[in-house]
């Protein structure tokens, strides 16, 4: 009975009720959208990293550190037999060396990355390199990403001088031929990188059979002279970045929740103030003051209940539409986030449940706060409209 009464009163507030419901519903939708977008973002970024670089982890030559380019040359080695024996779709042998190119007579340091031309583990568009023979004949065939092409003003078919050091420290220089400019899913393996055939790079550096790491699909157990780096390990920086994004979205959530809370709070204060006579009447009729508090709290809390429904009505078509277009994040090319294609929402039922619960609980709380004072109200003063002035 009290709930029915509360709902009737809620409806009586008309525009104010609608406003409260809308802002609360928008809070719910925004929170779920944000969290799900971050999930989608994380899933996509992780997937791109895995597909283009990380795979199921790296067996790296002990001591190799991608962030210390001057030491790349010191940490190469032969591929152990156990890894060598893996089929092409379960490993990608990779050699990383420093080099410099000179587009338009400017020096441009690059990472030369040689990948086995036959590997099928990583999703890299390096088909252009396949048709070349194992031994370099004329120019060295390379593939670069679109970002790299833009930076260096190189196009498909261009040649440019590449300088590098071989295993014994001798500097070598030769023309490379850009056989392909490709779109790489992961900007991290685009800018500053020149992709070569592994056999070519080994040949150029006189490092027959040597690699920096072997990307594998599955952990193969300990391998002598190599360190295994897990997926989590290799993506640590990315995961930290995403955690920050999550924190930012919580700030947005707090702001929205604050607005919704203030709106409901205000309505409730006005309710208590404007409806003192009604409160007095209820008390005179024998309704206990704590029941009156409950009625008024329910009135505010109904906002939460209806908001959840409205949020559903907004969210379902909105999210369905969003899933058909996705969010274009091509602007992230400039950052180091490994996403360049559109991202989509990825829903986590627990997160959705949790967000809704928090919003509903907070709404009930702010609906209750201003009406608490009813329980101390003098009914005779309330009847005269003078309990609160």
């Amino acid at each position, binding site marked *: 009975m009290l709930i029915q009464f509360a709902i009737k009163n809620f409806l009586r507030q008309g525009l104010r009720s609608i406003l409260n419901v809308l802002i609360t519903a928008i809070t719910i939708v925004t929170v779920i959208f944000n969290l799900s977008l971050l999930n989608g973002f994380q899933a996509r970024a992780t997937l791109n990293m895995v597909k283009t670089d990380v795979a199921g982890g790296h067996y790296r030559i002990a001591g190799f550190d991608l962030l210390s380019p001057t030491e790349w040359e010191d940490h190469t080695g032969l591929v152990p037999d156990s890894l060598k024996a893996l089929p092409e779709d379960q490993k990608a042998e990779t050699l990383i060396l420093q080099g410099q190119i000179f587009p338009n007579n400017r020096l441009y340091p690059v990472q030369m990355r040689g990948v086995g031309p036959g590997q099928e583990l990583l999703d890299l568009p390096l088909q252009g390199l396949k048709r070349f023979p194992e031994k370099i004949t004329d120019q060295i065939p390379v593939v670069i990403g679109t970002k790299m092409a833009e930076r260096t003003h190189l196009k498909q078919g261009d040649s440019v001088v590449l300088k590098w050091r071989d295993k014994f420290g001798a500097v070598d220089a030769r023309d490379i031929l850009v056989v392909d400019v490709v779109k790489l899913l992961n900007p991290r393996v685009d800018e500053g990188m020149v992709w070569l055939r592994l056999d070519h790079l080994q040949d150029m550096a006189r490092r027959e059979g040597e690699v920096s790491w072997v990307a594998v699909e599955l952990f193969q157990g300990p391998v002598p002279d190599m360190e295994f780096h897990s997926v989590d390990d290799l993506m640590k920086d990315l995961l930290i970045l995403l955690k920050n994004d999550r924190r930012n979205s919580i700030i947005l959530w707090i702001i929205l929740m604050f607005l919704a809370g203030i709106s409901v709070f205000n309505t409730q204060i006005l309710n208590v103030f404007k409806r003192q006579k009604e409160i007095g009447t209820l008390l005179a009729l024998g309704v206990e003051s704590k029941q009156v508090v409950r009625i008024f709290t329910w009135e505010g809390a109904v906002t939460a209940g209806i908001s959840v429904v409205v949020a559903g009505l907004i969210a379902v078509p909105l999210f369905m539409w969003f899933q058909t277009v996705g969010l274009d994040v091509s602007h992230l090319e400039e950052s180091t986030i490994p996403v360049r294609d559109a991202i989509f929402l990825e829903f986590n039922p627990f997160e959705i449940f949790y967000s809704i619960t928090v919003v509903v609980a907070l709404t009930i709380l702010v609906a209750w706060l201003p009406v608490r004072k009813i329980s101390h109200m003098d*009914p*005779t003063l309330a009847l005269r409209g003078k309990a609160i002035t």
Partner: protein
Amino acid sequence: MLELKQVSKTYRVGNQDFPALKNISLTIEENAFMSFVGPSGSGKTTLLNLMGGLDRPTSGQVLFDGAQLESMNRSELAQIRKQHIGFIFQSHNLLPVYSVYENVLFPLLLNHLKEQDARERVMALVEKVGLTEQANKKPAELSGGQCQRVAIARALIKRPKLVLADEPTANLDTENSFRILELMQDLNEQYGAAFVFSTHDQRVTQFINREVRLEDGAVLWDKAKNGNGELE
């Protein structure tokens, strides 16, 4: 049924005590149909509130069916009001979101009756106050007299032992006042509830059988009607 023993009520205004009621002793009979009269500020409303357990005296005792109201907590007082006391206010104070029917039904629901069991009883009383056609209207759609009749029905539906009506006719024209007073007189005879009004409306006098005059918070006189229908 109701007994006031040396009841006083003092309000504190600023840092001064203001005595609104001074040492009032009264006994109200089971079937009373009586009125407090007196100028504005004489303490009528204050007295009714004390009798209904809506307020507490500064000193003295209020006994309802022998039970001391001042020894009860808020919740117990609410129980008494819920079960035994009907309030009618100067302005009707109906619940605006409820229809006539629902307003009258409300006290029964509070007393844990089911709507299906209460429906007939509510409609019978709504008919008695002449509002059958308006049963589904909201208070905002009714006239002042109609609203006051709803308020009376709401006060009576639970068959209270005591009905306290604070200036029930103050907002009504003569015709409506008479109709309402006749109605209450009827109900008093039928249901045997004690009716206590407060008023400074002279028109009320001809209906009641006891009149207590208050002035400055004290009883000036207390007259009952004799066999000739005169107060003495």
